[in-house]
């Protein structure tokens, strides 16, 4: 059965030898680039194009053509290749269309050796673009998958090659176009016609509304594990309740938390020997709850009540951190079991119905009716069982969540947790920070804390742009911008509060003063020591200072001369909030910002950006590495994050305080009071 992919969707490949058939409305160039595990092109030769068409395991045509057949042998690729990008581009020249707007959408089919179609993708939605990364084949947990990428480039072949990490992309694009022009004489006359054209048109129709197009940069995996999976076309379900259904009465948890240490405070000694600072801690095999608390039989003797801190770790904080990751993994896997069972039940019913239809004599009449009813009943019975199993697992996790949430220390707790009412600035920074909640449509009410390690390994980006998911279509652009600014303030307040009072310095860039209202809590409380930097000069000054600091500290660390740092250097970690990017930024400032995003985390300088990628479009693909290096968060619930185990799409919800709550200003005032009392 062919999987008709929509943008961002993936599909497993049954073998390692596949053929990719491309048909486009006009002659196109096909090319391939290879990436290693980290998404880099390790070798400059890891590319195949008309001027250099051969790589071990894959070969492309020397000419532009409306139909391509690429044979790919994934086993024969150079070692360490984890991703194969399939690129298409329109050749340059007066004889060719300038962009895809006037052409039928390119259609790609992945087939097995026997010619049977495995997956297909129609690259719809291209207009001003003249080049597109159409598909990627990527290695995930030992198996190859195909994903529909559909990332177009208005800058054409050169821009796409540059974004693929090829040095001298412009020159290479020229070489390719020359090679194509040389081969063109032979290519003309190849009529692009074929039955595929027809199916292409038919396919575009249903493909669009079925699933939300995910962000073009792909779905960043939480825990920063390598390849992020796209959504399996799993969207929808009922409307999602954004409120906190289980936390309606936060002050009086009906079941007192049985945490042995009571309310753990951050002053419990944070472990020096915690899990490796490396990403993906939750994926450690040891962190998942072990068979001790095996889910009890439904209705059977299930005496083991969930307990907060029921996970390995050197401190209560670390145990809770690991427990949350364990719950996250369990939920991801239980939902995987459920979805797999439902898929199977559906496909089995389809098969059985097909076999009824196969026999023309049996197609009508009571026997056929009975067969149909039986197939349907079998499907329903299996789905019911799958639902019961999901119910059992999620019920267990919900019970666990109810005891874990109240036991969380501030850094891991929601704003409505009473622990924030009793907040005092900690003596040590925590190991992790909750940056929001995650949920999955099957159990929208069960919300898993989304925890990231501190110090931040990558910056945060609150996307104030038009959301790509369906849920936030109701919010208009201004409201979205306001929510993004509020989210940034809530996150910044959290980051400041969980650090010891003097160990984090906040900087804000707000070039046009557009975020003034959202910044009020930070300004009024005095947490922000200087007013937000305004105008181009303010932007330049702030970036200059932070860049210098990064340089100095890096130099000192490299030459092991940290005592030679100037005495007036602020030794606290630095958090830079950037509003309204790229407003007020010139090229130099953009470069400095990129530098901070890359080099800052290793020397305690973190970035929190509020930006709409569209507004920075003028910079072209040079900013793509910046966006990719940041963890994208959204001001409204949006399903753009993937878990590191199965790659489900999770709905992220930002960590905003309940409306009307004074908890944030109150916490910030305590931070400032603590600063004063320590004499700084």
């Amino acid at each position, binding site marked *: 059965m062919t999987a008709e992919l929509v943008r961002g969707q993936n599909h497993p490949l049954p*073998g390692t030898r596949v053929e990719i058939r491309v048909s486009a409305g006009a002659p196109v160039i096909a090319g391939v680039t290879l990436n290693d595990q980290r998404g880099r092109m390790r070798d400059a030769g890891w590319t195949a194009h008309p001027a250099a068409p051969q790589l071990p395991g894959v070969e492309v045509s020397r000419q532009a053509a409306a139909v391509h057949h690429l044979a790919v042998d994934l086993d024969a690729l150079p070692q360490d290749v984890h991703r194969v990008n399939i690129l298409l581009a329109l050749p340059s020249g007066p004889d060719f269309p300038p962009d895809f707007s006037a052409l039928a959408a390119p259609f790609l089919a992945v087939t097995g050796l026997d010619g049977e179609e495995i997956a297909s993708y129609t690259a719809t939605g291209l207009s001003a673009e003249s080049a597109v990364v159409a598909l990627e084949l990527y290695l995930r*947990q*030992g*198996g190859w998958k195909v994903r529909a990428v559909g990332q177009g480039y208005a800058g054409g072949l050169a821009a796409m090659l540059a974004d693929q990490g090829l040095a001298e992309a412009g020159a290479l694009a020229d070489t390719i176009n020359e090679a194509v022009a040389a081969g063109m004489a032979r290519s003309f006359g190849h009529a692009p016609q074929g039955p595929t054209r027809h199916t292409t048109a038919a396919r575009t129709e249903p493909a669009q509304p079925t699933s939300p197009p995910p962000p073009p940069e792909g779905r960043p995996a939480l825990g920063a594990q390598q390849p992020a999976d796209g959504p399996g076309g799993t969207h929808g379900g009922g409307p999602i309740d954004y409120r906190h259904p289980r936390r309606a009465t936060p002050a009086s948890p009906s079941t007192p938390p049985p945490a042995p240490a009571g309310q753990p405070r951050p002053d419990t000694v944070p472990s020096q020997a915690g899990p490796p600072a490396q990403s993906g801690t939750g994926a450690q*095999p040891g962190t*998942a709850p072990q*068979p001790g608390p*095996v*889910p009890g*039989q439904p209705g059977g003797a299930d005496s083991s009540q969930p307990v907060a801190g029921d996970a390995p770790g050197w401190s209560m904080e670390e145990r809770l951190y690991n427990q949350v990751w364990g719950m996250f*993994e*369990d939920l991801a*896997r*239980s939902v*995987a*079991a*459920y979805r*797999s*069972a439902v898929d*199977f*039940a559906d496909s*089995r019913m389809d098969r059985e119905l097909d076999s009824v239809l196969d026999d023309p004599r049996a197609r009508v009449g009571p026997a056929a009716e009975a067969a149909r009813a039986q197939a349907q009943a079998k499907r329903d019975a*299996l789905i019911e*069982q*799958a639902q019961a*199993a999901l119910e059992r*697992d999620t019920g267990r996790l919900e019970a666990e969540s109810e005891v874990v949430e109240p036991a969380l220390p501030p850094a891991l707790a929601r704003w409505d947790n009473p622990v924030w009412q009793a907040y005092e600035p900690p003596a040590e920074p925590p190991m992790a920070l909750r940056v929001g909640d995650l949920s999955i449509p099957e159990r929208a009410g069960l919300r898993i804390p989304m925890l990231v390690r501190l110090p931040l390994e990558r910056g945060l980006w609150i996307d104030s742009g038009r959301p790509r998911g369906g849920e936030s279509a109701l919010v208009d652009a201004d409201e979205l911008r306001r929510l993004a600014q509020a989210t940034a303030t809530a996150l910044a307040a959290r980051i400041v509060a969980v650090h010891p009072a003097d160990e984090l310095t906040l900087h804000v860039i707000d070039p046009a003063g557009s975020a003034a209202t959202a910044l009020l809590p930070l300004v009024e409380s005095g947490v922000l020591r200087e007013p937000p930097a305004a105008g181009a000069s303010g932007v330049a000054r702030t970036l200059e200072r932070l860049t210098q600091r990064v340089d100095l500290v890096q130099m000192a660390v490299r030459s092991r001369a940290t005592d030679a740092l100037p005495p007036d250097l602020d030794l606290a970690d630095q958090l830079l909030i950037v509003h309204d990017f790229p407003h007020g930024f010139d090229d130099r400032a953009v470069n400095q910002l990129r530098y901070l995003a890359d080099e800052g985390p290793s020397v305690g300088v973190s970035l929190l950006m509020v930006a709409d990628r569209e507004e920075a479009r003028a910079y072209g693909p040079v900013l793509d590495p910046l966006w990719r290096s940041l963890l994208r968060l959204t001001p409204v619930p949006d399903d753009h994050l993937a878990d590191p*185990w*199965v790659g489900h799409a999770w709905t992220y919800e930002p960590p905003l305080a309940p409306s009307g709550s004074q908890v944030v200003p109150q916490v910030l005032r305590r931070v400032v009071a603590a600063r004063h009392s320590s004499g700084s």
Partner: protein
Amino acid sequence: MPLRRVLCLVAVGRWRHRFREGTHVSVNLSKGQGISLQKSDGAALTAVRMGLGWRAAPRRGLFGKRTKEIDLDASAVLFADKQPVDVVFFRHLVSDDGSVKHTGDNLVGGAGQGGDDEAIMVDLQRVPVHIDQIVFTVNSFTGQTFAEVENAFCRIVDETTGEELARYTLTGGGQYTAQIMAKVHRQGNGWQMTAIGEPANGRTFQDLMPTILPKL
């Protein structure tokens, strides 16, 4: 990083083997024989471990003491109605649903009850409802045939108590590079293990599919 166990435990393996024989009373299955999986008190099992072990046949003659390494890999394939749904092997250590876990490099339980060269744990309660058979295979990654392997066995252990429930020992190695060892399949409301012991050739489990399918 492929988690791969390279074995050279001739002496240790022999000792462990004897140790196990002495401590466990379990059913010795013959090819094709099945056993229904339940605790000794008849209650349904919740979690089992499929342990696979082997040792290299000792060399004879000159240089007979030189260490010989045989790299066998255990895999488990999850089937729904004869269609493979998921595979657990050294590059995918946990099934997506979390019910089947390859311990990879870990010798669970240590020396006391260990001895399995590779082990795959199955949380029977968490196996998705549509999965009705789990097939366990061993294949030789380095290409040596089972003629160079002695006493390949698989055994199923009640994970909650450590008690061995059944064991199937392969007799007569031959010129093939893989073995379909056993399957665990649904039977009524419980599970049953059946010894298969079918030789096959192939480097990874994909190559074994044609041999597995008739055994489902």
